């Protein structure tokens, strides 16, 4: 089993590394966009999939990362990787007080509180025009080559898988899942919920921030509506639940599936894009609320004639 | 038992999610009787009552009311048939006035038509509720809340009233009051199914009682018989 997954990992790395050498720029661009979504999805998976706090506000970090990159490059003439990392760092720093405030809210209050925060950041970026360029935005020099961006995004995906895997197997991860299952009970059992939630929140903020920086550099133009794209939020959430929220590979599997579907939808059913995405959300929630990964896992277990392992996510139905 | 039983529960089985709560519960009540369900925590008393009132779907066994099967029937229909239920913890509507709480007891069309007379009846049974009918139920004292819950149960004109721990958390003097009220309700000809922690008082007034343990009926008898049974005294009366 272990050898098998190592082989898959090696093949994955090889494919990702080799792609720019045999694939067209378009294909590289497609995978770059997919990886950006998947990176955001990994952040969401940590706070919402594992910890159970449904966030509609990961785009606030995404936008922060995008603006950090744009301002670092445009105003301070820093190299773009510095701008991207600065965005990640800023997000982590902002996430501490923000999480401290927000994580006291539960259920829909937290979800919509985070959504409101995105709007506030978007308002700030449009009102503070002397620094952010306001609604007019910031024009950046064009990206010479997509490859470094592509590799950076791919690295974020691997980092997402690695971090998620490390967390799931740690005591930290178990406690997060305990919070998800029943926060009061976890607290009663002596789990320091406030600190743990905050840690998860901070880690989860770095992923969208870095994705936002890479995205802004690729776009070479940033304004409030492109820095805080609401549909990216939904795409990444849908990817995670499609693949399986609270699983290691869920965001990746869901992300690849949905990206391929979307690509086809754009090309062939332009006018029906939202309808199809919306219907897909509804169908997934009704018929496979756990996502693809647990389904596949159960299917494999059944074929081997084993009773499925009763993990956390299988109980939660 | 003399008459045909009004309620007959046979080999009832029920689950809470994946956890089996009832394995084999059987008992019956004749018209006009006061029947008590006894048993420790987790014995399945509340689950049994919820299964009868349609809030929980039984997985097996049967429930008959006035000779007709009612297991798996929706709770709305159960209330229509004449089974009232005063749930554990009272389940009042805290932000509504006492009067509104009572009127909701007469929600179904039949009782709704006679809601004024029924309201008068309940007010005569519980004068304190009449005095406080404008007050919101959440601001009542514990005893008053229990009276309000019982009053609401009576508003649906039940022929069988199930009371789940009506004296829970009440001062001894109020417990007396509750038992006096239960006696009054019986006088009206209503069959009463009672789940009670105050075993001694309950057995004193009970016609029949059944003992539940781990989701099974493990004993039965008249109130007096059980009161005299040394094992029962040891297990439930701590004497």
């Amino acid at each position: 089993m272990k050898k098998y997954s190592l082989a898959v990992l090696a093949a994955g790395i090889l494919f990702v590394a080799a792609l720019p050498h045999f694939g067209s720029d378009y294909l590289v661009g497609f995978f770059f966009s997919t990886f950006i979504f998947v990176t955001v999805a990994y952040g969401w998976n940590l706070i919402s999939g594992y910890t159970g706090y449904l966030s509609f506000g990961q785009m606030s970090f995404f936008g922060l990362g995008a603006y950090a990159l744009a301002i670092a490059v445009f105003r301070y003439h820093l190299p773009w990787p510095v701008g991207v990392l600065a965005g990640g760092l800023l997000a982590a720093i902002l996430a501490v007080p923000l999480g401290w405030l927000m994580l006291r809210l539960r259920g829909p209050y937290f979800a919509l509180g985070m959504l409101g925060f995105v709007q506030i950041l978007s308002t700030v970026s449009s009102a503070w025009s002397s620094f952010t360029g306001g609604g007019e935005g910031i024009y950046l020099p064009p990206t010479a080559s997509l490859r470094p961006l592509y590799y950076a995004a791919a690295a974020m995906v691997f980092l997402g898988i690695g971090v998620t895997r490390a967390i799931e197997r740690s005591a930290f991860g178990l406690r997060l899942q305990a919070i998800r299952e029943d926060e009061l009970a976890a607290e009663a059992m002596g789990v320091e919920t406030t600190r743990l939630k905050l840690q998860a929140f901070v880690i989860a903020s770095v992923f969208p921030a870095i994705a936002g920086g890479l995205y802004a550099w690729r776009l070479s133009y940033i304004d409030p509506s492109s820095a805080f794209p609401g549909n990216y939020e939904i795409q990444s959430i849908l990817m995670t639940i499609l693949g399986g929220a609270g699983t290691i590979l869920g965001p990746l599997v869901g992300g690849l599936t949905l990206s391929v579907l979307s690509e086809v939808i754009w090309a062939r059913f332009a006018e029906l894009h939202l309808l199809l995405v919306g219907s897909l959300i509804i169908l997934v929630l009704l018929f496979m609320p756990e996502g693809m990964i647990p389904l596949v896992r159960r299917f494999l277990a059944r074929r081997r004639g084993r009773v499925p392992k009763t993990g956390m996510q299988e109980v939660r139905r | 038992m003399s008459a045909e039983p009004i309620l007959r529960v046979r080999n009832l089985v029920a689950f809470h999610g994946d956890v089996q709560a009832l394995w084999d519960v059987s008992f019956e009540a004749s018209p006009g009787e006061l029947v008590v369900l006894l048993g420790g925590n987790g014995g399945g008393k509340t689950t049994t009552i919820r299964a009868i009132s349609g809030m929980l779907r039984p997985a097996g066994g049967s429930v008959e009311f006035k000779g007709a099967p009612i297991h798996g029937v929706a709770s709305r229909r159960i209330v229509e048939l004449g089974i009232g239920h005063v749930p554990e913890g009272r389940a009042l509507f805290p932000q509504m006035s006492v009067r509104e709480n009572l009127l909701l007891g007469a929600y179904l069309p039949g009782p709704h038509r006679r809601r004024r007379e029924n309201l008068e009846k309940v007010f005569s049974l519980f004068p304190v509720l009449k005095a406080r009918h404008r007050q919101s139920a959440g601001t009542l004292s514990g005893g008053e809340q229990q009276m309000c819950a019982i009053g609401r149960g009576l508003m649906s004109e039940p022929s069988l009233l199930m009371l789940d721990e009506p004296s829970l958390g009440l001062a001894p003097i109020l417990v007396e009051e509750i038992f006096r009220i239960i006696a009054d309700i019986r006088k009206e000809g209503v069959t009463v199914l009672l789940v009670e922690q105050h075993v001694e008082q309950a057995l004193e007034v009970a016609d029949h009682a059944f003992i539940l343990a781990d989701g099974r009926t493990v004993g039965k008898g008249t109130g007096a018989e059980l009161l005299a049974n040394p094992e029962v005294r040891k297990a439930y009366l701590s004497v």
Partner: protein
Amino acid sequence: MGRNVRILLVAAVALLMVSGSAVAAEKKPILIGTSVSLSGSYAASAKYGLEGYQLFVEQLNKRGGLLGRPVKLVYYDDRSDANTGVQLYEKLITADKVDLIVGPYSSGVTSAVSTVAEKHKMAMIGPEAADAKIYMRGYKYNFQGQTQAGRYMLGALALAKAHGYKTMAMLAEDTAFPKAVSEEVVKVVPEYGVKIVFNQTYPKGAADFSALLTKVKQLNPDIVFANSYLPDGQGIIRQSREQGVDAKMFAVAVGAAEPEFGNLGSTANYIFGATQWAANMKTKGNPEFVKAYKAMFGRNPDYHSAANYGAMQVLDAAVKQVGSLDQNKIAAAISKTEMDTVYGHFKVDGRGVQVGYASALLQWQNGKQVVVWPAAVAQGKAILPTPPWSQRK
């Protein structure tokens, strides 16, 4: 059991989505690629632009195509989203291997995809990007095919000067194009003897302008400029009436040129609007263009149709001049092209900024748009001052 059926159902929907994707590759024709905002906030205007492209391609093929080959327009929906536009141009150039490209709709999307064109060294005329800043970044393959934003309100300013109006309040949507219009107005007003007493922006999508207009009313300016699109332009004029803002002259940068502005009914009268093109303007080949457009699409073209058609005319001329699909030569040819299109006189400067196309001014009079400036194309005279709202029906 039930679960398997459900999985099958989901899978079936997925397959349905995929099944349409088989794309037949055709080798022969010259492919011209573009992205169009078929959905999203720009969809309505962008559709007119697309039809302008389509009409030209149709006519070109009837004339025997380009360089002796038929021409085919390849386009995808960018959903009014800049990032999607970038991906689609990447796809057009590298996957579909189009031979030529033309610009998308809006300054925002054009700005983003201009970098793709530049990277792949593909000449691109952007007929729907009025923001000249896009072309001031030292690009060599991008050319502005739309009147630059700075010129939109010159006609209104000329009229204001002629009537001796002194004070102005200006509102603008906080996005690239309207702000560019405002900046230019601020720069040139001294020449017209006008002082700006109020100059504020509002965010994209704003609907309630009553607070801003209360402030404007207090300042009692002679002129109100709304550097706005259709919905916000309508909102500002309508709410000016509701709040009793009695300026002597109201002008809207874009919105008043749209026929739908007339939905305001009598409130639309006396309002001025910048317009880049009108069906009855005496530009070269305009009547034939309007006639052919109506025949093909069953509706009147708007200025987006004409601008995109004009871009195709320039591209066609450049390719014919070069005699091949060599992008370097085509870019060089476009930069030197000076020609009369249906949209007006096309000419770009060394950076690619449009310096030929100019703006005209219309006024709503009795529910109709009347071009009132410049004199060369005017259909009627401007009526000024605007009567106070309280005296109007």
